[in-house]
């Protein structure tokens, strides 16, 4: 009867081979030989599949493995696939030709049937995904609002003297998001001032109006850039740290331990972080404003040959208390938002190390998005109020 041989190109000893034999009308025999090991070229199970599917009148499938000198998981996987295919075609599979170890391992692998309800495989359609995304977004927004509300209640309890905040924690966070943030705030704000002055100088020089660089830098720094840049730095630096700290505590069950001692995590963990950041943000912003103006002055004095006193007087005339307080109000709002985003993401962190990473990332993203959105809103509101 018909027989064909599949030998992958490999002329070493123990070359793996498969001969598909068809000794009787209703019987297929796979004659396997060689050392079936990981790292060797093996015949493809597709060839066997094809033979099973395309030979007419086949009812039985058998193996002949007398020529197999060695085998490992690759052989197991091969045999498993062929048997699955044969069973699916309603063939009677005779496994007695397989090595005893292979039979036992195949039985072991089949001992617990694959779970059917894990939902793997078919994903939802794009429309369903769109809807699910929308629902997730809404739930996210509700969770953030609930968290904000709970935090507000805790602040209220603190004002009434009922909340428990460990002073040492609070001081630690003050130092952490205050003094220790100074170097990076210094660098970034100074450079933002320099950039603003440069952009302004190129345009204003065409009209001989270089002196207005002082106005531009002064107003832009105090109203906008000081608060916003500081907030973005703090979102990346402190917001992410909050999320990672709380996330790790979640993984270690440390937050559970607080809860079961009757020490609400909202008061013990969130409140000191929130207060520290809300308190330090305006101070950092004030400092950033000053450094930005200094950066602008460096460009003004160095590049535009303006006088120092002249630059100072011009800035003092342009910037008034409104600009300064608008920036400071924003900075407090940003500080609260960054702390809330960091703590929220940390508290809802899952119980694995990957979840901590995701929480830190989500904290920065949420923080920056809420900074920009609230900035836009506040700018409009201040404008309407004529502030």
């Amino acid at each position, binding site marked *: 009867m018909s027989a064909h041989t599949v030998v992958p190109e490999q002329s070493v000893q123990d070359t793996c081979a498969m001969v598909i034999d068809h000794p009787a009308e209703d019987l297929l025999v796979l004659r396997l030989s060689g050392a079936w090991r990981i790292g060797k070229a093996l015949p493809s199970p597709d060839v066997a599949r094809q033979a099973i599917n395309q030979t007419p009148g086949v009812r039985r499938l058998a193996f002949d493995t007398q020529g197999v000198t060695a085998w490992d998981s690759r052989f197991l996987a091969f045999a498993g696939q062929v048997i699955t295919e044969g069973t699916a075609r309603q063939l009677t599979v005779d496994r007695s030709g397989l090595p005893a170890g292979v039979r036992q391992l195949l039985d072991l692998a089949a001992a617990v049937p694959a779970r059917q309800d894990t939902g793997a495989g078919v994903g939802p359609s794009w429309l369903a995904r769109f809807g699910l995304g929308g629902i997730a977004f809404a739930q996210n927004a509700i969770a953030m609002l609930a968290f904000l509300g709970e935090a507000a209640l805790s602040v209220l309890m603190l004002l009434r003297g009922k909340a*428990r905040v*460990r002073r040492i924690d609070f001081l630690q966070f003050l130092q952490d998001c205050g003094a220790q943030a100074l170097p990076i705030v210094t660098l970034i704000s100074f450079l933002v001032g320099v950039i603003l002055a440069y952009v302004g100088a190129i345009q204003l020089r065409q009209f001989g109006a270089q002196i207005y660089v002082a106005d531009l830098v002064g107003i832009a720094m105090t109203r906008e850039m000081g608060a916003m840049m500081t907030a973005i730095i703090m979102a990346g630096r402190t917001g992410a740290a909050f999320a990672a700290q709380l996330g*790790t*505590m979640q993984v*270690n*069950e*440390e937050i*559970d*331990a*607080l*809860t*079961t*001692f*009757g*020490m609400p995590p909202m008061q013990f963990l969130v409140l000191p972080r929130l207060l520290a950041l809300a308190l330090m943000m305006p101070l950092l912003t004030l400092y950033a404003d000053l450094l930005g103006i200094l950066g602008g002055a460096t460009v003004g004095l160095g590049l535009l040959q303006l006088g120092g006193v002249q630059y100072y007087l011009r800035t003092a005339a342009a910037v008034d208390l409104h600009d300064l307080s608008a920036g400071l109000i924003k900075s407090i709002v940003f500080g609260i938002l960054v702390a809330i985003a960091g703590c929220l993401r940390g508290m809802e962190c899952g119980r694995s190390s990957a979840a901590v990473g995701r929480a830190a990332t989500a904290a920065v993203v949420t923080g920056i998005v809420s900074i920009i959105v609230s900035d836009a809103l506040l700018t409009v509101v201040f404008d309407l109020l004529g502030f």
Partner: protein
Amino acid sequence: MTDGPCIAVQDLDMAYGDRVIQRNLTFTVNRGDIFIIMGGSGCGKSTLLRSMVGLLPPARGDVAYSGQSFWRADPAVRERLLRRFGILYQAGALWSSMTLAENVALPLGEFTTLRPDEIRELVSLKLALVGLAGYEDFYPSEISGGMRKRAGLARALALDPDILFFDEPSAGLDPISSRRLDDLILELRDSLGATVVIVTHELASIFAIGNNAVFLDAATKTMLATGDPKVLRAESTIPTVRQFLTRGEEGDGHA
């Protein structure tokens, strides 16, 4: 010792979202019991513990402590009940930013009016009780897993609890340390008069210290038996329970 049940679990269903973990759990724990929550891996033992100590609201049912409902009580009552618990988490769950002494001192500082020097004395005593005298100023990351567990126990003992909960106390411990922890649990129960609830699947511990138990089954998602584990091993007619308690050497013989 009084006769009324110390803990009564009534018709408890537990679920994470739509996924039911266990349903229809009803059992009682008497004062002074060493009560074992046992069952195969993934059957919801730790979840039951979380429901009993207030970390996971049940989908249905309630847990009552000395007749006082826990989940239906208002927050103030619940907080007072929590104060009576001491819980040892699986990996200790020590607050990693604090030293061992600070870990034990925090609940004392929060819930008592003791002076700092009195607290320091108590902290040293609690750490000495679990064999960690002299380790006051170590951070949790500086000591071994077994020591972290014992430090967690010292913290759980801080407020002299009536009820001690242990989540897999012997997980990750060598047989000797595990045995010592069992002895420690027995001594604490006897000297403090506390009630102890332990989640474990260590047969050695179950028979050595348990005098009451509940068996949870992952397949049927409910409890199969409750009572003294030694009696269950001798008399239970339920194959799954027998099989578990005899390491699969008896019962329906599938293993």
